[in-house]
């Protein structure tokens, strides 16, 4: 090889390395290891599948962009409802952003959140889910969110769903895409929320 060819080959290699480094910083962080190392398993269960309390959300297979938004917002103080400040904030505050992304991607890879043809029981909850327009954004049976940063709700824990509906309606939770949901929550009477949560939690 001539010296000029060696130089060009080296420059090409360096360019490829730079490209990879710019494109994939998260390769350095191991989401699966972090989920255990940072103590997430203690509340959310192994692989985030079976939380230890019904007020904690299932995470396995959730949209990674949604999860990352929640983690960032809890860390940054934009989401302060429920247990997010007392329990989660101290933990995620010590986790670097690229590690939060790795956690979100890891959890997202454990899908599906609910099986593709999951269905929930007929009844008032299902009817409300349709008539109150929830399905428009969360998808039929809460299983096909219309944007990548909207959450799957099919099969989510009932108590957690109920809390989120209440908090979004009351303004206690305002982070991320809640700005899209909050303006329609006045359509949902408080007394209708348990039925909706019951229905969604039983979508499988």
């Amino acid at each position, binding site marked *: 090889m001539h010296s000029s060819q060696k130089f060009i080959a080296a420059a090409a290699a360096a*360019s490829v390395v730079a490209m990879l480094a710019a494109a994939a910083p998260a390769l350095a962080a191991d989401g699966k290891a972090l989920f255990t190392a940072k103590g997430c398993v203690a509340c959310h269960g192994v692989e985030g599948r079976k939380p230890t309390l019904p007020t904690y959300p299932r995470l396995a297979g959730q949209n990674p962009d949604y999860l990352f938004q929640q983690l960032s917002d809890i860390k940054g103080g934009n989401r302060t409802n429920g247990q997010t400040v007392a329990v989660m904030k101290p933990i995620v505050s010590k986790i670097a952003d690229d590690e939060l992304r790795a956690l979100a991607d890891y959890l997202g890879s454990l899908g599906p959140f609910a099986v593709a043809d999951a269905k929930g029981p007929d009844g008032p909850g299902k009817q409300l889910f349709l008539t109150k327009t929830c399905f428009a954004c969360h998808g039929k049976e809460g299983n096909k969110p219309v944007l990548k940063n909207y959450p799957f709700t099919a099969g989510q824990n009932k108590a957690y769903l109920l809390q989120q509906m209440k908090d979004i309606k009351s303004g206690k939770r305002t982070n991320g895409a809640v700005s899209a949901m909050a*303006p329609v929550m006045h359509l949902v009477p408080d007394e209708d929320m348990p039925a909706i949560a019951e229905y969604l939690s039983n979508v499988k």
Partner: protein
Amino acid sequence: MKTVIRTLAVAAAATTIFTVGALAAEKGKSVGEAGYVWNSGGGEEDEALKLKPNAKAGKDVFEVCSACHQPEGWGLTDGTFPQLAGQHFKVIIKQLADIRAGNRDNPTMYPFALPSQIGGAQAVADVAAYIQTLKMNPENGKGEGNDLELGKKLFAENCAKCHGPNGEGNNEKFFPRIQAQHYAYLMRQYESIKGGKRRNANPDMVKQIQHFTERDTKAVLDYVSRLPAPADKVAPKGWKNPDFQ
């Protein structure tokens, strides 16, 4: 030698694409910003306006919209969602294009204006054409009805010159039909326009309504909500859209 140079060029190009990131549609200027021109057109709005609209295809697109705007296109009388039935073809295209391009902020509506949900410029034209086939709600949401004389006066002096003597709007000029629109929706948009939150607003309108008091606002919008649409544009009470039964 040539292969090496080609590889280097590809790597350089790839690096550029990775660093520039996803190519996003360029957001236009907002009302109040220097250089803002209302209804400057361009982009998808122009694309959609040039196409031959197909109302039949638009019906399939409208199914997405019907979830919130209702199968009849009547929205909700509490104003959460506006009535679309009776709205002008060009107005619908412009608003959809503006929401899609981020020139009008509406987080709730945003996903449903996206190509991934409703399709490209043809779909925008088609759904606007389908909406033209829908007759309006004979019982839209109205105000309190206790200050209509003032409302009538304010309307004639301020609004009629653009929105028409009966609030019928003007398709060619992109001025929306506001007659028989839900009062609460009118209120929300009006406040949004007045306060500069509605970034694709007409600056002449923004300026004109600055001096309106709360009483003025309620009076004129109540009056507008009660302005009847032409009889041939209005559905009978309780009408259901047979396209979605």
